[in-house]
């Protein structure tokens, strides 16, 4: 398989603090990678570099074989890298469709006289929810939605353009058991579309349920990177805590 994104010797330090230290890995299309580690292990920093929030101090990122230098989150988006934030970044006072299209509104009209194209946005959002097999109504306010529906809205954003990589930060942290299953299904849909998914999670069962591969980080270093089938929750726990040094 060809790597969609290849990170080579990536490091990031904030002053004297070494948040990410010499990490290399590759993401493949249609593969879900579970990124695990204790708080402060460098997961979020690593993902934020891929999403364009931070620039790496050292190392290179290659996307489809070309070097990738991101200065702003918008540029990551233009390259097909989408992120689902931990807090989902939703506006409760807007409809589901408005949230999906936030910052990328569709408009119609001629020349400078352009108005929001409500009809097209409702239709397109509806299509995406259908594809995600989520019972989410584009015209409903996000305020009134369940945790699973809110996740669907946030994930629908990543499907507006042809995303190649979707980064998800703790998508199952604060929702009910039934909704967790819903979100894991959404992740499988992304995989079926050939999207590379990076799933940051603390929840061992979720990662072992949905991921193809697991990467474990500890104190800024990558300490494991192996197929999920070749690992076990016990091993990953050991790697996270440091009981197992490296595999």
């Amino acid at each position: 398989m060809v790597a969609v994104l290849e990170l080579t010797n990536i490091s990031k330090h904030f002053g004297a603090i070494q948040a990410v230290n010499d990490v290399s890995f590759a993401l493949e299309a249609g593969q879900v990678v579970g990124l695990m580690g204790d708080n402060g292990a460098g997961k979020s920093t690593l993902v934020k570099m891929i999403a364009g929030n931070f620039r790496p101090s050292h190392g290179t990122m290659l996307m489809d074989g070309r070097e990738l230098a991101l200065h702003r989150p918008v540029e990551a988006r233009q390259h097909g890298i989408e992120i689902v934030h931990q807090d989902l970044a939703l506006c409760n006072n807007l409809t589901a469709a408005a949230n999906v299209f936030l910052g990328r509104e569709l408009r119609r009209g001629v020349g400078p006289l352009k108005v929001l194209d409500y009809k097209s946005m409702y239709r397109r959002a509806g299509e995406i929810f259908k594809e995600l097999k989520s019972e989410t109504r584009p015209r409903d306010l996000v305020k009134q939605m369940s945790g699973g529906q809110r996740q669907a809205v946030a994930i629908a954003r990543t499907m507006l353009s042809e995303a190649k990589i979707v980064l998800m930060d703790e998508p199952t942290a604060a929702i009910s058991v039934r909704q967790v299953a819903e979100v894991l299904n959404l992740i499988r849909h992304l995989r079926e579309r050939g999207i590379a998914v990076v799933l940051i999670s603390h929840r061992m069962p979720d990662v072992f349920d949905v991921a193809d591969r697991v990467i474990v980080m500890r104190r800024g270093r990558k300490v494991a990177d192996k197929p999920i089938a070749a690992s076990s929750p016990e091993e990953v726990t050991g790697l996270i805590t440091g009981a197992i040094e490296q595999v």
Partner: protein
Amino acid sequence: MTTTLDQTIKQKQQNWLGAILGSQTVWILLSVILACIFLSFATDSFATAKNLYNITRNVTFVAIIALGMTIVIITGGIDLSVGSVLCLCSMVLAVVMHAGYSIEVGIAASIGTALVVGAFNGVLIAYLGFPPFVVTLGMLSIARSLAMVASNNTVVFQFGPDHDRLLALGGGAWFFGIANPVLYMIVLALFTGFVLRWTKFGRYVFAIGGNEHAATLTGVPVQGIKVAVYMISALSAGVAGIIQTGWLGAVTTNIGAGMELQVIAAAVIGGANLAGGVGTASGALIGAALIEVIRNSLGLLGINAFWQGTFIGGAIVLAVLFDRIRNFRQSE
């Protein structure tokens, strides 16, 4: 499952009737209409052409600024400086025209002043992270002081060569006997309503009020929009100041004193939520109308004017109470 996924997705949450009954603006409008009907029967003087002309015209100054204020409130901000900005802009217009310049120059100077004041507020709030309350409280003091400096704290009632044109602009009735300020108000309200519902700018205003952090993460130019919003608010105060100058025919340094509270009251009664994310242009108008009808009717009914504040304050609390009850029901 009896309904398919398709049907669920296409389903609307509520029909138009539900939307109307759930809208605070509609209930306030209803109470304004009921009050008007009651007053028409209870007094001889309410439903006269002269009184209605007075009411509609008196509404406009508060209503025009309430339009700008509503946009600020939707973003989750507040602008306490509007009364003083109205005074400063009126005074700039008056002083420039008094010095012999044409009405065009006077209006340009006045509008320019409003935009500079608004940009100052906006930059401090958006880029330097000042709380809107503090910045605009400071501007409340600064703008009125500048108006006193500009006029040496005198009353200006001579507006140079274009004196009559200015008075016609604010005091005339060019269209079917409707007072000019009312026409300006209606045009501005339609424009504001259009911007809020149909433009990206309007969508971003609501997004910032709903969740500013989310708006930033999704690529909304939050800081630019915030500056624009405070410029619009100051501009609305400037426009109201120009019209009011033409209507009054004189400018003193205490016009617009305390007006910010009336304007905020109008916006809140009309359904704008001070926590941000909610508000409409029509609400601003209707809120201003309710305040004016209360004021007018107390006089006509022979109730002591000291009660005015109690009634207006009661209207504010009632309007928000309605909103609380609705939210309470939703959360159950």
